[in-house]
């Protein structure tokens, strides 16, 4: 019975994803590619992945980590350095004060995976000492790590690798994505959605597996989980490494999206933005993180911009001016945190099947909602 239900659930989800991708394709064909809609969609998808990877750690394993920006930085730099063409590395158009020591270049997909692996490697090393800490101490240690990583990447002694504090650019970005075995450009927004979608699907499958159940057991009660025979450290380390791997990939996507990478942007403020998305979406909900991400990016970078323009003032009120957007935005966030303390989704997930059932409910007998959960 339950298996049949699950199959139906999966089928509905797949249909939902297909519809989403088709909508993206249609949008990309009809609206000019420079429209802000695509900027928001791309960045929203990238932040969804970052938020989901943070949610895996904070929401599903109960490890309060604040190192996300650090891992994204590693991923972004690794991707940019690996894909930058050798001719540009050797010329002084990017490495102005240093001679680049990386004498090779890789393709787009391999670089992206390596970017994730390097972030995972760092997570493995840092996890060894840090994951023995709990709650607040873990947060402080990971926050410190992210700051140290940023300082190291800006250090001029390793300038031949990272270009010091200067920008990296002219690597393979979204305009260089092509269909396999051809030179036809791949729709950039679709590409980001596919990559982020695959990564989020993998995380979802992991959470539904026996490992995921072990993570949740650790989150709910460490002692009970240990008594049940779950290796605490092993599972924490695993969750930390996997989360960092996907944070690294989201960093690589971010560097593709914004054409330039500079360590100075990966401040703690970035981690807080992602944490905010996780909290708004609902700690422990993957679909919540995705919805939260798109809402956050759209409000922050698009919908509320009109508040900054003094020409939009009405009724003689002079409240709309540069910076007013931030005031309104903070108030919205306060309202959400005050009244929706569990976030938009709480711990639930969006279920297309449930929605369909609800629409159909009038005709057949009431659907069993508990089973879908």
């Amino acid at each position: 019975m339950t298996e049949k239900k699950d199959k139906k659930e999966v089928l509905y989800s797949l249909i939902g994803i297909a519809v989403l991708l088709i909508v993206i394709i249609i949008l990309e064909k009809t609206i000019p590619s420079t429209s802000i809609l695509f900027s928001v969609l791309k960045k929203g998808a990238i932040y969804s992945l970052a938020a989901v990877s943070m949610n895996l750690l904070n929401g599903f394993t109960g490890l309060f980590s604040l190192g996300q920006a650090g891992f994204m930085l590693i991923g972004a730099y690794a991707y940019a350095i690996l894909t930058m063409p050798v001719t540009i590395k050797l010329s002084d158009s990017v490495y102005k004060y240093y001679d680049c020591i990386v004498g090779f270049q890789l393709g787009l997909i391999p670089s992206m995976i390596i970017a994730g692996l390097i972030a995972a490697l760092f997570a493995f090393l840092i996890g060894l000492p840090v994951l023995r800490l709990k709650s607040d101490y873990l947060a402080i240690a990971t926050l410190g790590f992210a700051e140290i990583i940023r300082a190291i990447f800006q250090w001029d002694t390793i300038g031949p690798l990272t270009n010091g504090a200067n920008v990296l650019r002219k690597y393979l970005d979204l305009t260089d994505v092509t269909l396999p075995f051809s030179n036809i450009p791949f729709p950039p927004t679709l590409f980001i959605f596919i990559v982020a979608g695959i990564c989020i699907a993998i995380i979802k499958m992991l959470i539904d597996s026996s490992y995921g159940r072990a993570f949740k057991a650790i989150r709910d009660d460490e002692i009970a989980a240990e008594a049940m025979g779950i290796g605490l450290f092993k599972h924490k380390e695993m969750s930390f490494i996997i989360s960092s791997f996907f944070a690294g990939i989201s960093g690589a996507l971010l560097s593709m999206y914004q054409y330039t990478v500079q360590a100075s942007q990966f401040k703690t403020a970035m981690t807080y933005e992602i944490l905010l998305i996780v909290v708004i979406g609902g700690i422990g909900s993957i679909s919540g993180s995705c919805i939260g991400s798109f809402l956050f990016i759209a409000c922050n970078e698009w919908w509320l911009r009109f508040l900054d323009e003094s020409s939009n003032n009405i009724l003689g009120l002079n409240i709309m001016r540069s910076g007013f957007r931030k005031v309104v935005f903070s108030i919205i966030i306060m309202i959400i945190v005050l009244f929706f303390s569990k976030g938009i989704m709480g711990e639930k997930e969006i279920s297309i099947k449930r929605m369909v059932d609800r629409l159909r409910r009038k005709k057949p007998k009431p659907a069993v909602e508990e089973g879908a959960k």
Partner: protein
Amino acid sequence: MKKILSLILVLVLVLACAAGFSGCGGGGEAPPSGGDSAPTDDADTGGEPAGANEVVYIGVFEPASGDNGAGGKQETLGVQYANSVQPTVEINGVTYDVKLKIVDNESSNDKAASAAADLVSAGCSVVLGSYGSGVSIAGGPTFEAAGIPVVGITCTNPQVTEGNDYYFRICYLDPFQGTVLANYAFNELGIDKAYCLSKLGDDYSGGLVNYFVDAFEALGGTCIEATFPEGNSDFTSYIATAQNEGCGVFFSPVSTEAAQLIVDQADAQGMSMPILAGDTWDSNVILQAASGKNVNITVTTFYQEGGDPAFDAGVKEWINSDSANLSNNGGDDTIAAVTAMGYDAYFVALAAMQKAGSTDPADVMAALWDTTYDGVSGAIAFDEIGDAIRDVAYVKTANVETGAWDFVTVQGVE
């Protein structure tokens, strides 16, 4: 019940906030002498009787928050003032209203792309900005993809225009500025040992120090380089080192926050050697910090107040006419060089549109290469990369008694 109560509380707070905003803005609004906080309003409701004019949009891509928020606001002021002076443009016999579309790129590379996309979506014919080279580099590809030309105002990093045909700029470049400063220190001040301090992780100060050292050592001088980490607030050891090493000049083209601390501590330690810096120090923040202290601050910049008295008087009157402008300018009416540059950039954009005879971005872009304009900061023309052809920088020094900049010399490169 509790929920409703707190909802009401939040609403009251918001309204109070709004009332406070309009209250302080309203005070400045009262004088009718063109005292609009919004020159964008000015363009459509201004004296012009023609309400049916066609509209052309000029994008302003500037930070209003983040690390460079203060400088970005001053630069935006220049553009807004220019727009209030010249709210229309005549292209091929048709009069267009010029409207500014101002976005905040938040001094951040990751916000730059969406801010740029916002301008593109608004249908701007040409974009001006930005203060800070990093965001200009990050926003460049978006404008390039949309085919909209950008006129950089004070982004001095060479990489802004390199490899991006759509990016122009009206200021000089860091290699030039570093060389000018080195020449000034070596030839005018007669110094052969310099102490160079830059911020770790800041490409602006790091790059400028790099060019300064190259030029200074080529002239036969020696340099001692040092870097300080972000958030550092104790500069005494750097100043002491500079004094003990017998350096003749303290070169530190760092951000204005660190600059204030350096000025204070240099005064406290009785440092007599001149402090040298680049265009970022040309700010009333520095003047306020230096006022009444025993320091010698010399900077290179784009414009010297007094260079064009009519412009100066106009800007000052306009800034003083509105409290919002005054607060955006840092609280007083000192004219920052970036404001003058913003003013020039606006007229360069108008000149390019007139030359193109069209408001189509592609035509404007084609016309920009040959556009010349005689601005308050000097004659402006573009070379084959899209950089301004400039061979001099203004050197000025902070007068600690009057709290104003004193003109020293016009310095070029030999």
